[in-house]
């Protein structure tokens, strides 16, 4: 590989720069988010170690591969803005919250290390915002919706769609909060803009999540059972 000189701000105009680069968030905020993400990853390893069944391992690999691939596909929203899949809720519905957290961490880390998509200091924040917010928060919303609407069998696909949209909004709120804590922007500036754009991007997230789950339901619905083979894990608080 030929390394080239980094070109700073100009890179932001490139189509394949997707995740937060270093510098947006202040160093203390980035380190704080690394601590939070570190604790979450330690919990994820512990829970996965207890409950991951052999038969679910290939699905972890496939989910990582699919989410990596799908995140490359930016879809246009409006007025020269695009969005892309996060995939946390999709992964959690299939694998459970903790194994899904590891899948998202793997994807976002490879993107940062190999593809320079997202910074290294800010990687902890990126894993949290784009991964754990969906696999833990989004998944908790998914479980609550399933309980509310007649059980997972019946409600799976619409509940996942709504949870996926919520996960995108929560992720956008999380990065906004980190930018505010870094003194990079003002609340009345960043929040309406971020939440407004991501309300639309979230529709794409919901559509892809529901389409993927619908495809699995139609072709190999037995894959939905892999998640709980190793004993159901407590849903995150």
């Amino acid at each position, binding site marked *: 590989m030929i390394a080239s000189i980094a070109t700073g701000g100009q890179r932001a105009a490139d*189509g394949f720069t997707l995740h937060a680069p270093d510098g*947006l968030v202040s160093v203390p905020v980035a380190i704080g988010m690394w601590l939070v993400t570190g604790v979450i990853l330690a919990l994820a390893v512990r829970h996965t170690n207890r409950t991951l069944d052999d038969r679910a391992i290939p699905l972890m690999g496939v989910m990582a591969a699919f989410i990596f691939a799908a995140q490359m596909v930016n879809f246009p929203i409006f007025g020269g803005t*695009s969005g892309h899949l996060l995939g946390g809720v999709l992964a959690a519905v299939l694998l459970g919250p903790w194994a899904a957290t590891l899948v998202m961490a793997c994807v976002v880390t490879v993107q940062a290390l190999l593809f320079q998509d997202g910074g290294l200091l800010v990687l902890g924040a990126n894993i949290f915002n784009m991964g754990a917010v969906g696999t833990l928060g989004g998944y908790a919303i998914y479980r609550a919706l399933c309980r509310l609407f007649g059980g997972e069998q019946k409600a799976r696909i619409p509940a996942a769609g709504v949870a996926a949209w919520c996960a995108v909004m929560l992720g956008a709120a999380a990065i906004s909060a980190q930018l505010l804590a870094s003194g990079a922007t003002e609340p009345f500036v960043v929040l309406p803009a971020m939440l407004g754009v991501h309300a639309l991007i979230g529709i794409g997230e919901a559509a892809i999540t529901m389409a993927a789950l619908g495809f699995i339901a139609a072709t190999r619905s037995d894959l939905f059972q892999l998640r709980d083979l190793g004993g159901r894990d407590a849903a995150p608080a």
Partner: protein
Amino acid sequence: MEQPKRRWWLAGLAISVLVVVVLAPLASSDPDGLERVGEDTGFLDRAAGPLFEILPDYSIQGLADPTVSTIASGLIGVALVFLLMVGLGRLLRRRRPPRA
């Protein structure tokens, strides 16, 4: 037949490869939500360049054709995250109690 039923993960990988080969080159090159807001409201000026570059922006430097470059780097990523996750899964899996 047990065997064909187990091959579902190959189908999953094939779908991921198709997404990279067919859809990734068609991806919108417009800035995404965070970049757009960052450009509009100014916080993107704070962005620092990366410390090093390996396959920057999903491209292989030296490959002239951008489509080929995107697809090739995407396939490297798909293979790598798949292998990493399967490896991690094997390390972490629940050991079943030995059956008598």
